[in-house]
C-alpha cells in the first residue's frame, strides 16, 4: 500500500478558503454516504463509521486545526440525520479529530500500522465519548458486554473503511492535501 506510506511534514499544510470548503464538502459527502448506506454495510449489527475513517485520514493529513471545524459541521449534520442528541456526534468527532491531529505531530512517517493504531484509538475515544454523553443526557445505560465485542469489530470495519476511503479522498482532494 504505497498510498499509506508517506512522509508527514511537521508543519500542517496551509489551506486556502477554497481548500477548506472542499474539505468540508468532502466530509459532508462522506456523512451522506454513511447515512444512506449504513444499513447495507453493517455486519452483525455493527456499522463501519466512514465518518471516523475520513476524519482520521484528514486529521493525519491536514492537522487538527483544519479538521476540527470540519468535524463539527459533519457531526452536527450526522446528528440531525440520525436523530442523535444534537451535538453529541459533533463533540465526539471534534475530540477524536483533535487527538488524531495531536498524534500527527508525534510521528514522522505514515505507515499502515500507524493508520491501524490511530483508527483503533479514534474508534475507542468516539464510542466512549458517545456513551458518556448518552448516559449524561438521556440516562441510557452502557452495556459493557456488548461494547467488549462491538469495539473490536468496529475497529476492524473502520480500518477497512479507511483503506477504501484513502484513495477516494486523495483523488477528490488532489493537490489540496500536499500544500505546505
Amino acid at each position, binding site marked *: 500500500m504505497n498510498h499509506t506510506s508517506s512522509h508527514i511534514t511537521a508543519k*500542517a499544510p496551509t489551506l486556502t478558503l477554497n481548500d477548506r470548503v472542499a474539505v468540508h464538502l468532502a466530509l459532508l459527502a462522506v456523512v*451522506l454516504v454513511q*447515512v*444512506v*448506506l449504513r*444499513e*447495507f454495510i453493517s455486519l452483525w*449489527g455493527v*456499522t463501519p463509521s466512514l465518518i471516523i475513517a475520513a476524519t482520521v485520514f484528514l486529521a493525519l493529513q491536514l*492537522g*487538527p*486545526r*483544519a*479538521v*476540527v*471545524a470540519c*468535524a*463539527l459541521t459533519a*457531526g*452536527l*449534520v450526522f446528528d*440531525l*440525520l440520525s*436523530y442523535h*442528541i*444534537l*451535538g*453529541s456526534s*459533533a*463533540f465526539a468527532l*471534534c*475530540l477524536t479529530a*483533535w487527538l488524531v*491531529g*495531536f498524534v500527527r*505531530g508525534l510521528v514522522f512517517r505514515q505507515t499502515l500500522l500507524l493508520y491501524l493504531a490511530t483508527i483503533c484509538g479514534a474508534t475507542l475515544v468516539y464510542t466512549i465519548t458517545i*456513551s458518556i*454523553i*448518552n448516559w449524561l*443526557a*438521556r*440516562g*441510557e*445505560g*452502557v*452495556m459493557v*458486554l*456488548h*461494547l467488549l465485542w*462491538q469495539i473490536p469489530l468496529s475497529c476492524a470495519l473502520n480500518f477497512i473503511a479507511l483503506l477504501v476511503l484513502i484513495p477516494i479522498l486523495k483523488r477528490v482532494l488532489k493537490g489540496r492535501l500536499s500544500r505546505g
Partner: protein
Amino acid sequence: MRFLYPGFFHLLVALFISASLITIDSLGLIEARHALHSLLTPIERLAGALRNIQKTQDHLAELSADSPSPQSSFAFGELTRENALLRQLLGLSFSVPYTPLPANVIESSIQLGENYLVIDKGAMDGCAPDQTVVCGKYFIGRIDEAGLNSSRVELLGANTLRVAVYLPRSGFQGVLRPRPNGGLEIYYLPPRAAIQEGDLVYTSGLGGKFPRGLLAGVVSRAESIPGELFLDCLLTPSPHLHATTVVAVLLPPSPPIPPTPPTTEEREIEEKVLREDEYEQPVGEEREEITVEEPAPPTTEEDEIETTPPTEQPMEPGEEER
C-alpha cells in the same frame, strides 16, 4: 506547553458549541431542530428508496427462482403479513377511542442504546411526542421526536421507555422495562403472583401516557427467585417489532371545537331577522306551527257541483246580507 498545540483553541470552541447544543437539546428547547431536520428529509427518503430497491431486487430474485408454491415466496409472505397487520389495525380502531394514522417505516435501528424507528409521518400529519405507536394489535413504542415530515419512534426495549401494564388473567399490574443485559421484564410483580408462561400482557393506561388495552406482548418466563422482592417475569414483545414496514400512530381524539363569537356582520343580520320576526308576530304570542295540508282531490260529485253555476235565490225581506 502542550496545551498550546495548534488547534487547541479551535477544539475548545467546537467543544463549547457542541456541549451547548447537547444541553439545549436534552432540555428539549430546540424547536428549530424539526425545521432543520425537515430540510434533510429528502436524504432519508433517498435512503428508504435505496432500501426498497434492494428489497425489490430480492423479491425478483426470489420470484425468478423455482419455488414450489407462490406462498413460499418472500414477497407473498411479506404482503400477507402486512395485510394481516392492517386488518388488525382496522379492528383496533373500533376498540380504542383513538384515530390510527398508518405510517411507513423509513429507517430502523436496533443498535445499542438506539432502539428506534423513523416513520414518514410528522407534525404536519398530526404526530406529536409521546403519542402511541402500534404494529397491528401490538403496542410497540411511542413517538420520541416529531419532525415536520418524519418522526422518531422509541421502541420497547429502549432504555428510557417504561410502560405500565396489567395481566388480565391474574389481575396483577407491573411496569414494563428493559433488562440491563437485554430483553424486557415486568417489574413490581409480587413473588407469589399466579402468572404463567403465555399470559397476555396489556397496557394498563396508568399514568395517562398510553391508552389502556393494547397488547404489549406475551409472558415468556415467570419465576420466583428466593430472596428477591419481585417476580422474575420476562416478556416477549411483538414478533414484528424490528421487522415491520407499516406501523400506526394513535392520534388522540380531537377536542370539540369551541363556538366562535359571531362577527359584527353576523350580529347585524341576526338582529335584523329578529326585528322582522317581531314585526310579523306580536311579542308574547306563541308561535304556532303552520302545517300546510294539501287539499284532497275533488270527487266527481264535487266536480259536478263546481261546474254547475249556483242558482241565485231571491233574498227575502228582512234577511241581512252576510
